[in-house]
């Protein structure tokens, strides 16, 4: 096995990203869709950290970006869950395909 480096990290993050994307596309449950979003954000975090570590170690831009993304993710998740709960109240379901009144 090769010594892990930048490309390994990028491979992991990119794969993770598209796993998240795949999950976002296919999951019908809103909570699981939200989980997919978290995977996506995590892959981005990993990207930032990897770039920061391997390429741009003279500053901590990537690192800070990651920290703020985590904060944002939390806020976003909170609001999303609030919305989902509200949706559950009105729709009695959190299946995304049950909330398709608005279309065309």
């Amino acid at each position: 096995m090769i010594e892990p480096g930048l490309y390994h990290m990028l491979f992991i993050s990119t794969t993770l990203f598209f796993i998240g994307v795949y999950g976002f596309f296919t999951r019908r449950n809103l909570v699981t869709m939200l989980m997919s979003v978290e995977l996506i954000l995590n892959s981005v975090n990993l990207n930032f950290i990897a770039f920061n570590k391997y390429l741009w170690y003279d500053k901590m831009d990537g690192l800070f970006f990651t920290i703020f993304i985590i904060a944002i993710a939390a806020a976003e998740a909170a609001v999303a869950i609030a919305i989902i709960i509200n949706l559950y109240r009105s729709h009695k379901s959190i299946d995304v395909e049950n909330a398709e009144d608005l279309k065309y």
Partner: protein
Amino acid sequence: MPNATYIALIPLLPLAGFLMLGIFGRKYFKNTSGIIGTTLLLVSTVLALYTAYGYFFEYGKVDGIYQKLVPLKYTWLQFSEGVSIDMGIILDPISAMMLVVVTFISLMVHIYSLGYMKGDERFPVYYAFLGLFTFSMLGLVVSSNIFQIYIFWELVGVSSFLLIGYYYDKPSAVAACKKAFIVTRFADVGFLIGILILSFHSGTLDFNTLIATLTSPETAGYKSAAAASFIGVSALTWGLALVFIGGAGKSAMFPLHIWLPDAMEGPTPVSALIHAATMVVAGVFLVARLFPVFAISSPNALSLVGYVGAISALIAALIACTQTDIKRVLAYSTMSQIGYMMFALGVSKYGGEDGLGFTASMFHLFTHAMFKALLFLGAGAVIHYIHSNEMKDMGGLRKYLPITHITFLIACLAIAGVPPFAGFFSKEEILLAAYEHNPTIYWIALITSGLTAFYMFRLYFNIFWNKEAHVHGEHKGEGGFAMMMPLVLLAVGAAVAGFIPFGHFVSSDGKRLETAFHLQFSIAPVALGLAGIFIAMWMYKTENNKPDKFAASLSGLYKATYHKFYIDEIYTFITKKIIFNLIGRPAAWIDKNIVDGLVNATGNGTKDISEIIKGFQSGKVQQYAIYFLVSVIGLALLFIYWWK
């Protein structure tokens, strides 16, 4: 030089009458309009006579040649350098002559109508229209500019239209006026294009300049006109031929004559004025006006005039023999006589003795105006009395309508060419001219002349002799002074006009033309004429079955002529089947379905596309995300690999 003002007044007075009666007639001149119109025209007539007198005897002649004077010219519409429509007055022998003819006949008709149209509820309108017509016709004859003549040409057409349609609630009158307008309009397009051609090459619209340019081979205009050709015919000939088509339309030459018999739907005095004496000779006048160009520069066009005239003369005469409506007989006779005038021009040459045809044509025009007006007015008196146009309702009227009878007879004799009545002299000259220059036409003319005598006396006998009159109801006799005075005056004219030495005044080149009387030459036509008269007398003087037998023995020809050689049917076929069904209908259909259809299809297509693509907006948030990603990938591929 003459004073232009009073010459201008000649046409303007009737115009004033038209405006006055047309606008205020209904309200203020309900009963006096006839008097007003007639008075104005009387002034015009006096002025016209004065002008003619002045022209012929005082100032018209310079060095023995009648000049083409232009006392008035006003630029009306400037197209380009040198090319402009001018409103002007030209004074030359034919216009001076026409001024007299038009005003005189018109005056007669005005007076006659005082009696004939009495009590009509649209009396003022009638006189207004008469005024309009007279104005237009006078304007036409004094036109100094080819476009001016076209303008008045059209005005004459429209006044004719208005007068034919005077009895507007009669569907046949409506149809007739429409037909008259449209047929002549069709011919006018030819005239218009002819004007365009001639004016393009000569670089002018002014008659005098135009004639001068196109008759002198050294001018650039002449050269270009003679050089340019289309289907082997020079532009000049095309131009003249097209102008002649215009003339032929107005003068009811074959095959554009179909409107004329129908035009008899108008009041009879109108027929006398417009469709016999004045307007219909406009075509002859037009050719005469451009005669130098025809004669000098384009003999081909001139012989076209000649042949069309001859054929029209013959065909009309044939048809006239079988018609039973007296006004239609007169109409065909008019057509036939105009044919005479036309071919007289056609066989003429320019200048000198060879120009006899020109003089003869004008002479015939002049005399024809007298006796044809008389015939119509007489027929009007008959119709006024009997309330029918059909021969079968008439007969034996000579006792009831003595003045009419006599004057009518004079006119018949005149038209038949019996000496010493006016028609004899003019027809004689025509035949002579034809004899000298074109034997074919001469023979046609000769036959026609026999036929003329026949159908005229057929008419005469059928009206005044034949069966006994069975007049019902009360009648006030012949219609009073107003109607009789014109008859008498015209009869006098028809009787004596032939003695005017016409060649002294009117000739193709303005020089004096001595017209000798050739006894040996006139024997044939006179004899033929008399033969015609006697045949008619034999057949129609008393009620008998000879006409029917005769008709039966010639069944094919009779039928063909009775149906006017089916020309009307051919026209109907062309207009209904071809113009309407093959052009008009498809055009409307294409517009509605294809052109408009495309426009609508664009709109509907947009809507349809909008309907088709609505599926993208499926309401599924995951699908949105998929589209999102796919778009990103697609754009990335596009911009990374393809669109560098």
